[in-house]
């Protein structure tokens, strides 16, 4: 590829502008919508940063749960003291709440894309409420179990049950924290293109994370139900 000799300051432009760039082809540059390219140019902000960051974070959280669920499967086969507990009915409510919250956050994100800031914050609030409802429902499920005399140390199944719900709950609280940040800091349109890209990038990242929390819970719940 013949690269013309260009003075650096001529090449600098904001992400939205596009235009010919002396960029080599390589697989890491996916086009992410209206703006041009995910490739950074070092000193400029590229909105893909938040998305990449959240996917990388998801990779590491997934590995944590892969480790814990592998331990669950190994432990279930390693002795005869494995006693599944009666699953609290409330967990179905939790599951319903978090599934619906995935829909509401998607609606919220799409409202932002359509520049409807009112709907964006409304649906964000709905999502936070549903997320908080999920956490409360999980806590009540714990209380139910404690009333039945099922504790962390009762048997390995209950140990893993409390561990999974607690670990997932903590990560979900992180998600609620992120959504609260969005509500406090990103509900108003920003003046600059860069500010808008950051706003959309942050909302995208939080949405991806929230869907992951939803999927993770469904996976853990299924494991707890079907691998008893």
């Amino acid at each position: 590829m013949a690269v013309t000799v260009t003075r650096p300051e001529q090449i600098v432009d904001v992400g939205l502008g596009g235009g010919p760039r002396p960029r080599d082809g390589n697989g890491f540059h996916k086009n992410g919508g209206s703006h041009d390219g995910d490739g950074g140019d070092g000193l400029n902000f590229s909105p893909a940063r938040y998305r990449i960051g959240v996917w990388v974070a998801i990779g590491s959280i997934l590995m944590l749960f892969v480790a814990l669920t592998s331990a669950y499967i190994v432990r279930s086969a390693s002795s005869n003291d494995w006693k599944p507990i009666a699953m609290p009915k409330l967990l179905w409510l939790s599951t319903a709440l978090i599934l619906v919250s995935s829909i509401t956050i998607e609606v919220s994100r799409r409202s932002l894309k359509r520049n409807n800031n009112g709907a964006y914050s409304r649906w964000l609030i709905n999502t936070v409420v549903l997320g908080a409802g999920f956490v409360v429902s999980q806590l009540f499920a714990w209380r139910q179990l404690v009333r039945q005399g099922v504790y962390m140390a009762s048997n390995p199944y209950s140990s893993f049950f409390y561990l999974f719900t607690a670990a997932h709950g903590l990560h979900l609280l992180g998600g609620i924290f992120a959504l609260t940040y969005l509500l406090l800091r990103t509900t108003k349109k920003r003046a600059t293109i860069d500010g808008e890209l950051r706003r959309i990038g942050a909302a995208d990242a939080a949405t991806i994370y929230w869907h992951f929390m939803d999927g993770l819970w469904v996976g853990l719940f299924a494991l707890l139900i079907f691998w008893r």
Partner: protein
Amino acid sequence: MAEATHPEVHRHPAPTGFIRKYIFSLDHKVIGIQYILLALSAVVVGMIMSVLMRVNLSWPGTHLKIMETLFPQGAPGGVMTPEFYLSLVTMHGTIMVFFVLTTAPQGGFGNYFLPIQIGADDMAFPVLNMMSFWVTFVGFLVLLLAIFAEGNATVGGWISKLGESFAGGSGTVGPIGGWTGYPPLSALGKIAGPGQGAGVNLWIISIAIFCVGSLLGALNFITTLLNMRTRGMSLMRMPLTCWAWFTTAILALLSFPVLLGGGILLLLDRIAGTSFFIPGGLYVSGSTVPLHNGGSPLLWQHLFWFFGHPEVYIAILPGMGATSHILSTFARKPVFGYRAMVFAIFAIGGLGFFVWGHHMFISGMSPYSAVAFSILTLSIGVPSAIKTFNWLGTLWGAKIRFTTPMLFAIGFVSLFVAGGITGLVLGQTSLDFFFHDTYFVTAHFHLVMGVASIFGMFAATYFWFPKMFGRMMNESLGKFHFWITFLGVYAIFVPFHAMGLLGMPRRYASFGEYEFLKNSHSLVLFVTIAAIITVAVQVVFYFNFFWSMFKGKVAGDNPWEATTLEWTIPSPPPHDNFAGVVPVVYHGAYEFSVPGAPNDFIMQTEPEGVALGAELGGASGNGGNGHKA
């Protein structure tokens, strides 16, 4: 258009106050130096522990006044107890692996140079970067607390107030179970021996905190490299250092969560009464362990080594990257087989996830899985050999400039081969049955992951010091440091192989009672003297490091005549690295001795057609790999 982006160029303005500038700094360069200083402090603790161990092995019953003062219970009369020795083994390993070999290569040099080498003004998430250092630092403090919680009755008394499982003050300097913390003994609490109460709890908490810090760092490295490369910095034009840091970050990202998960389970076994790892019917220290049943100690080994094996590559890959970079620079030749080097890094990193079982050959695993793990382990020899071959190819026929960083880089190659070759011995089940838990294993991993990685970091320090501090380190002191250290580490670890062949077991506090080891005492003594000399000569390095910071010869922008982006900017670099200018890259990272070029090196930023004759104009365009010329 240039004006439009200027507000973005300074994403965070240069700080003015002392605290924002040097303590809670967002600047990746300051954070990198903080990591390096943390490693330089931690390694002193680790080295003192190793000398104490050697002294005990060679001259059992040595009276040390300071030990009596600091640890009146662990070293009554200044003479260390066997349990004290075991806790030294544990803490030496933990400190060295986590707070030296993981912090300096990746958190230190990676943090400082990855953004500059790809032409970025900082990491992708500066706040996370700052948090990653301070979280790691807290982890180190908690580990130091473990030393005093067990070793000092007063501190132990305070810790004991946290609950029964935090009983401390048992007269060791931490847990006695080794850095691998195998259950069931690590899961039972103080009944399992001195140091196994508060010591193990604090040890687990420290490592869990460390995991979180490393994960924040890895997240930042990966995002930065994928998202913030400057114009023209295609993946195949990156310096090999960046490839190494990138691969290391991926390994950390995928392996540390597994250790974190295992650590949580272990801690719950200790403080919440669960039985993940504790089997039923255990009889320990004269009594039966109540209330636990059915756990699997092997489960911990699987989780631990799934992390533990990638961890050794986390330690050494940055050293490989630095070595490739430095060999090429001082051989004045392109890296031989750049693409092969990149793929070999990935192959080593990838295979590293499928070989953890070779740490468990004697655990009673199925011989069929052992064979699978064995074959996968031996296959790591292939990418390792590719790398070694290419390093030699880079040196072949070169007019080498024997500077101190070059000497250490060559030393790295030597140590990597010497230590790696015994990996092929230990990777075979039949041989490992004999060598497991002998000094042969200790020799293997010290040479290949310990000393080789450290040589990579010494090379990196001497090489990048002028960029970091604007002054050169003293060459004569550096060469003196190199030769004594190089000969010293071989004098320490080659005899270890012989001890292993004799069947000398690891982790024993003394060998006096064993008839079959009576004749090896002179060997033990020789190693101890070599160790003391080698440790002592590190004082020269520390002196050189801090003295040169203020009194060294002033370095220009590019004292080594190197090609990569960090050498295009002032030493030390300004706050946002490139002073608001976006660097544009036209060349691969290793264009040395290009025919027809006026100099024997072409900077990555040199516009094409200016430095080269017209006939070579297209040599390093799309995907230029640096050795086409």
